[in-house]
């Protein structure tokens, strides 16, 4: 019952937060953008399971990583790209196998490693890394998340786009307490993926509208 209520609240809060977020204007440039790269060249994007870079591990870490996976597929699909695998809210029977990499490896990736990402036919590979996630219960509930996202051109073996998103969100009072720590934590991860991808990738959607 409590879990059902939490899920309903999560959906409502997500709708309130995400829909305006999709159209929000943020002129900040990404941390890295290859000068020869254009967002409009991208259509099909292979999304690699989110990697874990957190130092302080949350108890429901795998669920947070799954939330990031879902959010990436959901937003990319919504903005008019063709994410592979496509968006599905169904939890996989077993957790996807996640790469073990360091933050330094991702910031300065080597060509042979990039060429091994995703299936051989993939050209654009999107990789999300959960850098930090935490949630707290006080008089209300709050959560925060930091996500780094990268797009690789697998055929050329290079990084073409990288950015960092950070979100701290929550709800005070009884509503926050009813949502619970886990829900707020997942909400922060969801919003954070929207934050990091939305600034750059919603462009195509805006142009088509």
């Amino acid at each position, binding site marked *: 019952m409590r879990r059902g209520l939490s899920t309903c609240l999560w959906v409502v809060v997500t709708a309130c937060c995400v829909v305006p977020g999709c159209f929000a204007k943020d002129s900040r440039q990404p941390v890295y953008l290859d000068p020869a790269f254009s967002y409009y060249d991208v259509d099909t994007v292979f999304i690699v399971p989110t990697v874990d870079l957190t130092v302080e591990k949350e108890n429901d870490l795998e669920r947070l990583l799954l939330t990031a996976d879902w959010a990436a597929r959901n937003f990319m699909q919504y903005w008019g790209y063709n994410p592979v695998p496509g968006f599905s809210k169904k939890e996989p029977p077993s957790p996807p196998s996640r790469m073990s990499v360091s933050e330094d490896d991702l910031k300065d990736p080597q060509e042979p490693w990039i060429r091994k990402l995703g299936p051989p036919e993939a050209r654009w590979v999107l990789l999300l890394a959960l850098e930090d996630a935490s949630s707290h219960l006080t008089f209300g509930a709050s959560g925060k998340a930091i996500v780094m996202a990268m797009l690789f051109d697998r055929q050329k073996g290079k990084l073409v786009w990288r950015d960092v998103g950070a979100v701290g969100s929550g*709800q005070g009072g009884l509503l926050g307490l009813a949502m619970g720590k886990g829900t707020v934590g997942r909400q922060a991860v969801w919003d954070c993926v929207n934050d990091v991808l939305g600034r750059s990738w919603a462009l195509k959607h805006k142009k088509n509208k």
Partner: protein
Amino acid sequence: MDFELLKSEAPLDPKKFDGTALAEEMASAAEHFLRSQGLVIVAEDGLPRESVESIQMVQREAGRLARGFRIEELRPALAKLADRLGARLLLAQYLRVRVGSKGYWEPLSGAIGPGQSETLLVASLIDPAAGQVVWSNKLLVRKVLRPRSPDMERSMASLFGPPVELLTH
């Protein structure tokens, strides 16, 4: 030491964070830790000039060594150092402060949000002869650490506190 904005990774002035005092506090905590492990600290002044030069060369990559990032590329420099120093260990430390948005509370909607700033601390003991990390610990503090603060003191205790089991020694 790196001081940067969280979202843009734009570098910030270490002076604003009293970077020198933070480094001194970390060095002092590390010294205490090494002595507690029964290790002897070698002062740079007591070493031959060539060794000092080798140390300075490796010191430029201290952050990378602490994080164990592509340590194999530094193996020749580490091996040279090991040749000159004999069987000794290196302690490398790294600190990164990322400054993000502040926490908020909106009384009308009831929305709350925690602050985004954080400090990452990493310490590693390296065997230069083998070119390997023999012990490493890292700690994330979800705020900007200030020197001589109770938070900094607690963080140093956590970073160097747990019982240490060296991997190869």
